[in-house]
């Protein structure tokens, strides 16, 4: 490929979408076979993508938010769904700069020292403070034997956090649903989905103290959840 064939001069206008049709066809044809121009184009697309930040700012009418919110309708679920755990690649990527790396090392050192201190204090606390967090282990059923999880309940029983791992990701028509069990009754504890690696964590709220329930179960339900369990149980614990 000789330099004269490149379309470098046309790339700025192409990125803006302001070439004529014939010019656009010529550029598209060239880009198909030229990695140099494709790389150059990316830099101009980056510029185009940001130009909107230069638009004169005008406050929208207050009524517009209400119209936008009509898109969504009422909230579908009443509990806090997953906040995805960052993957290892993302974590390492965020640590790539030297200053962040140095900061991370410092944080790890502090965490390690705090853990040692915490372990030392913990022995005293079990004697002097009987109101500690409670946890209930959740084991996978035959439907998903690799899955496991834990329900951590605050000392008051008012708040809980569900953490699960290795649950099979579901299709878009289904979600997992947590059930709070007591005297044969099942109370909805919230619906959730899991990340590709089967992980999620979810805050759990309940009208009654969570530590008053005799057990917890998780079933597969239609998206949005059910009023009573209808699907297969995949996790459970007492």
């Amino acid at each position, binding site marked *: 490929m000789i330099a004269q064939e490149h379309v470098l001069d046309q790339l700025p206008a192409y990125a803006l979408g302001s070439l004529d049709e014939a010019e656009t066809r010529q550029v598209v044809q060239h880009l198909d076979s030229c990695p140099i121009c494709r790389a150059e184009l990316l830099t101009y697309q980056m510029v185009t993508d*940001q130009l909107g930040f230069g638009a004169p700012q005008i406050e929208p009418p207050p009524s517009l938010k209400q119209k936008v919110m009509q*898109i969504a309708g009422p909230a579908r679920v009443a509990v806090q769904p997953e906040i995805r755990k960052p993957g290892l690649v993302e974590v390492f990527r965020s640590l790539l700069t030297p200053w962040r790396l140095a900061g991370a090392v410092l944080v790890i050192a502090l965490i390690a020292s705090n853990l040692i201190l915490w372990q030392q204090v913990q022995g005293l606390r079990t004697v002097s403070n009987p109101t500690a967090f409670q946890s209930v282990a959740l084991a996978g059923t035959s439907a998903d034997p690799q899955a496991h999880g834990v329900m951590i309940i605050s000392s008051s029983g008012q708040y809980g956090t569900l953490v699960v791992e290795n649950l099979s990701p579901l299709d878009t028509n289904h979600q997992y649903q947590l059930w709070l069990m007591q005297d044969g009754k099942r109370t909805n504890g919230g619906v959730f989905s899991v990340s590709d690696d089967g992980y999620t964590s979810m805050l759990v709220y309940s009208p009654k103290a969570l530590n008053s329930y005799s057990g917890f179960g998780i079933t597969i339900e239609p998206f949005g959840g059910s009023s009573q369990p209808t699907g297969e149980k995949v996790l459970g614990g007492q």
Partner: protein
Amino acid sequence: MDLSTLDDASLIRLIAHQRSEALGVLYDRYGRLVYSVALNVIGNAETTEEIVQDVFTRVWEKASTYDADQAKLSTWLISITRNRAIDELRRNRVRPEQFNVAWEEAIEIKDPRDPGPEAATETLFKQKSVREAIAALPADPRQALALAYFKGLSQSEIAEVLGEPLGTVKTRIRLAMQKLRQVLSTQMIDQS
């Protein structure tokens, strides 16, 4: 939980789970930006409102397909807003002589709504950076760039609107984009 403290990626995940309050927080964070881009393209408040609703409908329905590795949420929103608005402009065949385009003249950002963790840093930084870079361009390239960006005009159409030779317009747009690339790339490197 106060969702306004969540970053964009977490908000989008909640929206993908059909959490309407997350959509409200996203609107508080970017509604003005989306509205401003659309209004500067369309020039008509009523149609602009329809476009803003279309953009957030798309976010609501397509949140699960958003890929943070491909584009920041703010630039993704700007891109779909601009494309949607220019489509509308072309469909209505607005006469070019009716076009009134301008860039933001104020460099400093006043009264940011719901700053949020990203808006407080990245988005505000970008707004200031882009405004400074555009303000540093000579007036003629700035005008040609505005007609291309906000009105979706081709270089030939811009030459016709401005009464300038096509070659002049091509040079102005090329030099403007090259200058912006140079300035914005440097700022992004400095920021990182």
